[in-house]
């Protein structure tokens, strides 16, 4: 879903400190809630692959959430809970993690075959295939901290890390695939039939994919947490968001994963639907290229931030559904510093700051310094569904025009945009958002070691004080201490304004009210879908 200003699909590392809960026995779902019913949900776009390793976009990742399990899971309160591993032990030095696997878990059966048991071999297999040089997966870099994996017995595996890292446990939520799954046991490519017809241990079994990538998922009667309540999930691809919303309005689908902000009022006024907000741990921003001499002065960047009326944009374009932010963390995160206030909208102040920085109005009304006009190029990727992006960048252009800054908006095709921003650094301003997969590790965004082609510090921000705080925050194992450091970091980056931080939008999922007990995971979405149910009377 891309209603946000283009999400840069970067999943930052996890940094949540969690306690290790006691192992729980496999739950059965004798919870008195009815089984049955069908849930059809709409997706904007079509998934490329359905396995957890080669897939690299949200539509696919949501499906894998229904089909696969990790060794550990993350619950609604962001705590680590057992999944395929019943319990685990961590060595004193934090370098070895031993997982005791749940026994009797069965893989989805293939047609005409008996289901096979999940064993330690599958975990080793998954790790090996993930790390194989010929497997193309975004996961590889995230698991380079693992030195080796050993099978102690059929239901025990031990991971040895290269060095102790914070919150390593959360990283073991990677999805496990069966050793007998892929046709090629060495590495996984998208040509392997497994990526289209995967089998997992999860609550739903992939039944069929149509030519149009409509995916049918059936309840796994044998699911180790108990049979999921809803019989069937249908993932329906749409090529037009307006039509998708209309499909929902006319009961052709029951759920929208992410409602387009412009359609919120329509759904809000309809009693048949529930709009459920979920926090996506992301934020949007205007990022500046500090390599440009025009933008090197922080007063200029602060002036831009003052010039932009974020409240007005949020209200006019997003129905006010979001929070204006002041710093580099998502407001839902523990690292966010609520004491730092967003800079207020104040064009007069903005002009004063520009004057202070040595800019004076030129003959054409554009601010200039030493004969050089304050003219910037704002690069934006082209997308079909891009109304929100267009609105925000054009409004930005308008706000800056009012203080005598000329902004040229340039739309570029997605790959070309990425090349320009991340490889060639040929831009002055971009609009983008970061999506955090759990909480707040911003080291790759602002540390000076992260300057370079295809690194995340695309603006070339470099500040020894920030570098120091980032390193300090990474080294400390004490949560409170890290919080203090991150609050300092927040204040510092807000002051320095390498970005104009905009807002975190509230994501809304819209669904028919027949769906009950819907809990939504912030970015994996379907993590708790086995608990959702439809009352018998409304199953039809």
């Amino acid at each position: 879903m891309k209603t946000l200003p283009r999400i840069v699909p970067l999943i930052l590392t996890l940094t949540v400190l969690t306690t290790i809960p006691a192992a729980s026995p496999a739950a059965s779902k004798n919870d008195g809630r009815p089984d049955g019913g069908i849930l059809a949900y709409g997706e904007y776009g079509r998934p490329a692959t359905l396995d957890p390793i080669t897939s690299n976009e949200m539509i696919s990742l949501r499906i894998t959430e229904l089909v696969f399990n990790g060794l550990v899971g993350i619950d609604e309160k962001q705590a680590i809970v057992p999944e395929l591993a019943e319990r685990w032990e961590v060595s004193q030095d934090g370098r070895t993690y031993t997982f005791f696997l749940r026994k009797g878990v069965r893989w989805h059966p293939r047609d005409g075959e008996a289901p096979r048991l999940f064993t330690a071999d599958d975990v080793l297999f998954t790790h090996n295939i993930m790390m194989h040089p010929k497997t193309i997966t975004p996961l590889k870099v995230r698991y380079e901290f693992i030195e080796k994996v050993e099978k102690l017995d059929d239901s025990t595996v031990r991971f040895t890390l290269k060095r102790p890292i914070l919150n390593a446990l959360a990283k073991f939520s990677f999805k496990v695939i069966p050793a007998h799954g892929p046709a090629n046991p060495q590495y996984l490519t998208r040509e392997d039939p497994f990526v289209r017809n995967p089998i997992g241990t999860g609550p739903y079994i992939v039944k069929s994919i149509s030519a149009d990538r409509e995916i049918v998922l059936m309840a796994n009667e044998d699911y180790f947490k108990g049979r999921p309540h809803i019989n069937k999930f249908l993932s329906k691809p749409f090529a037009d968001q307006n039509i998708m919303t209309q499909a929902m309005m006319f009961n052709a689908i029951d759920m929208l994963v992410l409602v387009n902000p412009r359609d919120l009022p329509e759904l809000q006024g309809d009693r048949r639907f529930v709009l459920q907000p979920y926090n996506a741990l992301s934020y949007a921003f205007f990022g500046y290229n500090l390599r440009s001499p025009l933008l090197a002065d922080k007063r200029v960047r602060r002036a831009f931030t003052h010039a932009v009326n974020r409240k007005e944009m949020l209200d006019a374009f997003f129905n006010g559904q979001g929070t204006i932010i002041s710093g580099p963390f998502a407001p839902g995160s523990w690292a966010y510093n609520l004491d730092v206030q967003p800079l207020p909208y104040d064009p007069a102040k903005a002009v004063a700051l520009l004057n202070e920085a040595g800019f004076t109005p030129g003959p054409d009304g554009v601010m200039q310094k030493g004969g050089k006009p304050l003219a910037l190029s704002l690069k934006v990727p082209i997308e079909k569904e891009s109304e929100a992006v267009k609105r925000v960048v054009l409004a930005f252009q308008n706000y800056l025009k009012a203080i005598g800054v000329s902004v040229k908006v340039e739309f570029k095709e997605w790959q070309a945009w990425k090349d320009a921003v991340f490889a060639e650094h040929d831009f002055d301003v971009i609009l983008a958002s970061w999506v955090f997969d759990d909480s707040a590790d911003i080291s790759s965004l602002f540390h000076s070691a992260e300057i370079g082609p295809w690194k995340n510090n695309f603006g070339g921000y470099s500040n020894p004080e920030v570098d120091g705080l980032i390193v300090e925050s990474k080294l400390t194992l004490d949560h409170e201490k890290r919080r203090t450091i991150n609050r300092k970091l927040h204040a510092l980056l807000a002051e320095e304004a390498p970005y104009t931080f905009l807002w975190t939008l509230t994501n809304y999922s819209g669904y028919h009210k027949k769906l009950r007990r819907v809990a939504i995971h912030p970015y994996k979405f379907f993590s708790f879908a086995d608990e959702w149910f439809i009352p018998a009377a409304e199953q039809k």
Partner: protein
Amino acid sequence: MVHPGRGAKVTTKLAAFRRVGVMVVRELALTALLLLGVSLVVFVILHLSPGDPFSVLLEGQAPGQAARASVREALGVPTTWYGRYLAWLGNMAHGNLGTSIRTGVPVAGEIVRAGPNTLYLTLGSLLVTLLLAVPLALYSAWRRSGALARALTLAVYLISAVPVFWLGYVVIYLCIHRFGLFPLLSATAEPQRHGWLYILLPIIVLGVANGTVSEVTRHLREELGRVMAEDYIRTARAKGAPVWRHAFKEGFLLPMTEMIAAKMPFVLGGAVIVEQVFNWPGLGRMAWQAAQDRDFPVIMGITIVAAAFVRLASLLRGVIYAGVNPRTATE
């Protein structure tokens, strides 16, 4: 007019068949040559492009030089462009169009799955276009300067200037709010009332607004008018001889096949839009997705198949021409 004897008639018929045969063989050879040309053109365009088609695989990781090189190695991509082209041609000769970079699915299979949907849409909408254009052309050829003919022509010109996706929205809106039905394939699991409308609406929308109605009408009208005005027809008519057969062939059948063959590429193009609006699972949506992802094998495959389809239409036209009007076969 000469009336040959019975025996002579049989031999002319045989000769006609042979001529058609020769024509078909020649057209097929030309088609093969053209498809080769099409594939080369597509390949060269793609080769000249600065973008990297494998970037889509590296989405979510840093696509540096090393990563890009390793993807190529992992997928076994030939390093030279002619190497890639020859490899593609070699596969093509075995009916293998390669595999999609994005999904890893064999392209040929995908096209076979999605192709028929586009075929219904295109052929259906051509039929709609003809249903609109033919009566109008006949009527206005008959009453050239009648007020009704003028008004109808005006109306046809008007609708063929409507942006096709906007018309799609209008039609869907009307269906929802006037008739209370939602005309999309992605409808509920249970069968819908008026479900057949789902098939018809995109066909009608594309048939009306593919931008060719006006041209087809104009062409047919002019050809009819021209044929009716030919000297010998006038003479024949004056002598009371039946002329409808000749008029039908020359003034109607030929220009119509001509238009169908000529407009095929446009209708196929329009399908790209209509398939998106109506969520129709066809080649047009595939082409759009592939263009976005720079999924070169898919783009190549779709272009080749579409070109083959266009050539087929023109082959059909050739056959009809040769059958109806033997002169063209030897031309």
